[in-house]
């Protein structure tokens, strides 16, 4: 894969942008002209070449810049990375999964040599080389989850399975759409999804939980989630809401194309072997609307989806303040023509 890593920012001057190739491969989440919650889980099997689903873990042109942003977040707020004491085995399971995936999928960038428990990891883009003993935390500079989490795009949480529930007992969360790891650590699946409106009544979470409790090693699943963000800001945490919340008021009819972003989360779920825990990845993709509408089908579909949203979802996804201005801007890209089913560009 010919990856050229960009040098861009997700804060302050917001120089982030997508190359044409990144736009084409963007995981547009809407397969029809409206949206409602569903248990839209599918097997996480290799997808089309070049797509974000090709490999178990997707590394793209934003890798180096995203990891730099993560490092800044963690420096400012170490509580974005926490693990309860009983989750150490799960942390090692996660490290194994990510290192083996990244090395197998992107051999030009990552190398993993293993001699029994003696592992040798090389990360060329981030210029990291580490020899360590798998299972011995004293041979790594930080905990296993943090060590590999700082080198992999996406947020990760580790769920301990017990008593017919999944408990979020560890995580490294710096690109979240507005929830707090520090507050939610220790909650179960039903509880941490507590604030999501409407979905509980539709029993979406009840069914998803039953499914995930039976998730088996070697059979990961994935789904897409979405929201909108003003500016390509990765750190839209509640911790910093008082700093970024006012971004929502800065949208004008002229700047919608550059300021308003569709934010899609590719979520992966893996059963981990030694700990029997579930690894939950939340991989964030951003696209400004000016880039999105270069795909005509998406330019037609997005306004139709936004029109279809019930008020609770508009409010929960934080879109209220700029929805009308955004719809106004998008209207010139929707000529009313029918759109093909499915998410891919025509």
């Amino acid at each position, binding site marked *: 894969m010919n990856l050229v890593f960009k040098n861009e920012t997700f804060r302050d001057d917001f120089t982030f942008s997508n190359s044409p190739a990144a736009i084409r491969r963007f995981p547009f989440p809407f397969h029809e002209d409206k949206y409602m919650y569903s248990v839209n889980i599918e*097997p996480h099997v290799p997808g089309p070449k070049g797509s974000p689903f090709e490999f178990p873990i997707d590394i793209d042109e934003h890798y180096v810049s995203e990891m730099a942003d993560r490092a800044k977040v963690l420096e400012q707020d170490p509580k974005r990375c926490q693990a309860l004491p*009983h989750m150490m085995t799960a942390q090692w399971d996660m490290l194994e999964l990510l290192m083996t995936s990244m090395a197998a999928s992107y051999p030009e960038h990552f190398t993993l040599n293993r001699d029994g428990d003696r592992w040798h990891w090389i990360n060329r883009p981030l210029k990291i080389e580490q020899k360590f003993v798998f299972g011995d935390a004293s041979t790594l500079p930080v905990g296993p989850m943090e060590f590999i989490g700082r080198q992999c795009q996406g947020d990760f949480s580790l769920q301990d399975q017990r*008593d017919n529930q999944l408990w979020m007992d560890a995580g490294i969360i710096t690109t979240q759409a507005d929830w707090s790891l520090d507050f939610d650590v220790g909650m179960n699946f039903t509880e941490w999804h507590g604030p999501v409106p409407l979905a509980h009544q539709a029993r979406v979470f009840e069914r998803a939980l039953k499914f995930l409790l*039976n998730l*088996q*090693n070697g*059979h990961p699943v994935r789904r897409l989630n979405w929201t909108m963000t003003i500016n390509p800001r990765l750190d839209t945490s509640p911790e910093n809401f008082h700093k970024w919340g006012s971004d929502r008021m800065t949208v004008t009819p002229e700047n919608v194309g550059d300021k308003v972003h569709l934010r899609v989360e590719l979520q992966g779920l893996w059963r981990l*072997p*030694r700990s*029997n825990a579930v690894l939950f990845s939340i991989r964030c993709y951003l696209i400004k609307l000016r880039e999105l509408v270069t795909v005509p089908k998406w330019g037609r579909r997005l306004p139709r989806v936004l029109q279809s949203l019930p008020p609770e979802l508009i409010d929960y996804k934080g879109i209220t303040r700029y929805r009308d201005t955004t719809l106004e801007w998008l209207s010139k890209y929707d000529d009313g023509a029918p759109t093909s089913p499915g998410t891919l560009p025509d």
Partner: protein
Amino acid sequence: MTSSSTRRVRVVEVEPVADRIKRFRFVDVSGEKLPTFSGGSHVVVTMRAPDGHLWRNPYSLMGSPADASSYQISVCRADDSRGGSDYMHDNVRVGSELDVTNPINLFSIARKARKHLLIAGGIGITPFMSMMHELAAANANFELHYKVRSQTRGAFCNDLVRQYGSRVHTYRSDAGHALPLGTLLRDQPVGTHLYVCGPQAMIDWALESGRAAGWPHENLHSEHFSAPRPGSPFTVKLARSECEIQVGPQQSILEALEQNGIDPPSLCRGGACGQCETRVLARTGALQHNDHYLTEEEKLGGEKIMICVSRTAGNCLTLDL
């Protein structure tokens, strides 16, 4: 079979460890390492007799989770065997090939416990073997109390004492030893969890004793691999496949389907996990729910059935399969 895939393995070692108990060790036929697993896991072994008879039995993995070169299981020839354990004892030898699922865990360590009290009876020792590897590696505080009928039927006693020393306590029925459960239950620090595996009667006794000693349900765990409850034979009609299957008195619906080459989703085969939930479209008699999964409402509703353990009293059942 469910989305849990199977792999072909070859038996490399068979050892009679005690009267009526044999240990089997097997490796992947391709020579590849097997998946590592968590303590308390089991695999479902598919056995095919030359006459076409099919058995699928769960067996706990006994070895160390850190050693993925082979898997070890132990099979006790059951007094009331439906054929599976007899088959393993009589027909499986070094060189035999079997299909096994990837490890599944329905009996795992409570990782937040301060202490683990393991109560094993007979062949029920097997899930604790892998659990103790994991507990010992984590320097966890645990004790094993292992009840066997006699030395000759007490598998692994010497090995266990050698490996885990004073954390292992064995009790022989033939020598009149009683497992002092009452005393044990009253002498544990708060935050101790109890795990029991063995004959159903022992499990019931341990769980009831635990509750009677003021232990909350959350701290009491058990696993039991039992054969599905038998009943009278009946016909199953599959609405979507448009065929009819006979379910024998000793067979579960799931087993009857598998015997006929149909592989509906399933996992635990014990009525606990929900994977085999199937819609009932029509029936001529009452459903006999033997599972622990459906709610009371769902059981009364008569529209759902767990095909791995439940039956009907009537003579015909139509399923959405």
